[in-house]
């Protein structure tokens, strides 16, 4: 399978913009694989062929890289890719229970998608938001301080097409493909949305201010 001429032309324009940022073209491989996922929702055969052609690599070299990184999906992710942190701290704080209940509720397991293609699940490792444990991610946006109930509600809402908003992120949730485009280095216009910081991120500053503590002048 290959891309249609129209798709190919559009992707080539994007790819050239991305490649142009780097002193050496091969550095653009990870971004280009994100770009492929923004088109196909996974690293498709056609997409990997495309990366190889754009960078003058063999397809085997591209596949050798794409299979190393967990964010590149071997089969289509759901429109909303849902991660539950099951690393020690989140697991202990309730992530294990969230995962079990969510997997049972949706009938899907790790790296599987619902039959309607709306939601896929992943057991994720530490996502650097431990002070908000238990943490979930949807399309790599933060959904902090989850419970089994909130997690199931979240997935039900996603499948029903109801609006869902990250706890620290933009005012709307992008699809997996839209997110992948940002990761490829082609920004959207959502950076200004959402809080600067929230909750635990501000705890130390709040206490410092309450006590009049400052760094030395």
């Amino acid at each position, binding site marked *: 399978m290959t891309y249609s001429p129209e798709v190919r032309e559009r992707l080539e324009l994007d790819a050239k913009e991305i490649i142009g940022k780097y002193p050496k073209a091969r550095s653009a491989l990870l971004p280009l694989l994100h770009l492929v996922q923004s088109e196909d929702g996974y690293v498709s055969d056609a997409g990997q062929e495309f990366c190889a052609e754009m960078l003058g690599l063999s397809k085997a070299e591209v596949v050798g890289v794409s299979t*190393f990184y967990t964010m590149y999906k071997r089969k289509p992710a759901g429109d909303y890719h849902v991660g539950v942190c099951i690393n020690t701290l989140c697991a*202990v*704080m309730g992530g294990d229970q969230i995962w079990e209940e969510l997997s049972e509720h949706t009938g899907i397991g790790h790296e599987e998608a619902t039959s309607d293609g709306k939601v896929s699940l992943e057991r*994720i490792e530490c996502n650097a938001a*431990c002070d908000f444990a238990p943490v979930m991610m949807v399309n790599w946006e933060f959904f902090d301080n989850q419970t089994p109930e909130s997690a199931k509600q979240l997935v039900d809402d996603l499948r029903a097409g109801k609006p869902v908003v990250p706890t*620290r992120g933009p005012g709307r949730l992008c699809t997996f493909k839209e997110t992948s485009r940002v990761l490829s280095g082609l*920004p959207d216009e959502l950076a200004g949305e959402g809080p*600067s910081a929230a909750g635990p991120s501000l705890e130390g500053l709040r206490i410092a201010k309450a006590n009049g*503590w400052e*760094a030395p002048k």
Partner: protein
Amino acid sequence: MTTLTPVLTKNWDLPNSFTLEGYGDYSAARSALAMDPDAIIQAVKDSGLRGRGGAGFPTGMKWGFIPQGDGKPHYLVVNADESEPGTCKDIPLMMANPHSLIEGVIITAFAIRANYAFIYIRGEVVHVIRRVQAAVREAYEKGYIGRGVFGSGYDLEIVVHSGAGAYICGEETALLDSLEGFRGQPRLKPPFPAVAGLYAAPTVVNNVESIASVPSIVANGAEWFAGMGTEKSKGFGIFSLSGHVTRPGQYEAPLGITLRELLDMAGGIREGHRLKFWTPGGSSTPIFTDEHLDVPLDFESVGAKGSMLGTRALQIFDETTCVVRATLRWTEFYAHESCGKCTPCREGTFWLKQVLKRLEKGQGTEDDLTTITDIADNILGRSFCALGDGATSPIYSSVQHFRDEYLKHFEIGGCPFDPALATVWGAK
């Protein structure tokens, strides 16, 4: 009593802290560009700043290793691949205050005579990536970066690069391979990146918080920075409290503060419970117990007690937590993230996981404790990079401090803990 010293976190409560308007005018970078680059390196050496990514290598010394006048391009690479379990400081820093990082990049790149800088951010945090992308764009529009920085003759390009899910890329040479478009596997050292880094050219790789601290040093002076902290661990750092604590969060304080002091500020262990074990700096640093509440959290004091300051990721667990389960989970993480390049780490983490699973289910024997420490002996110091070493930390330290708890598992043929009690909602 040690008090908090917000510097990097100071503007986080402003609604526009992530914009130039909410940050400032890059006055430190402006004055740096009027300095002799070597004087900047000297100032950072004098400040005593040590790498904030875990290893604590003196930052100014690292910059000093870049050969000058060698006719080769130099590169600055910011390691924003924050993935060490428990570590959660760089991500909120880049979300709330990306300009502190970019201003630090300008100063650092100018000091090491680099015209290209890369910020390698883990891919799983899209809103953080947006914020850094937008801040870089703003800086370009203002002429703070690009051709002729601040109207000078100095050019600097900054590229924001997203990773794709691999803890190993936090290891600096694996990061460089990944940034070159390969599988992220560590390189043999030497040569160190300062000699042959990105594209085999001299390269500085620094953590986000290290670089973001640089503008404050230039603005306030090396003595100001060195006036905080301890004799050999100078300055401030962000301490990240998570887990069974009343008010988890980010606490920016001088190095040398203790967990007891931090817990006082954070409202203590969650109500009705007591401290059981904690990590001083992420899962790769051997666990501490309630015996270590008064250990100054600086590189030397934590090291002297058998652990490492690491990334100041204080994961706090109370008495409802099974240490065997915690160790198993961390071990599963290392096995999952082992890049496969070297045998001790690839095979060792795999077998540790198998034996720990048995132990947690209460199906092990006392011999298994010898087995896991034997396996750890064959990983520690024999692996290609620090990932393997890190994997052994929870093993050794949990067996050292909680041997009886391991034994209890196979005495009763199962785990003596109810995981429900450890959850956020289980305590209520």
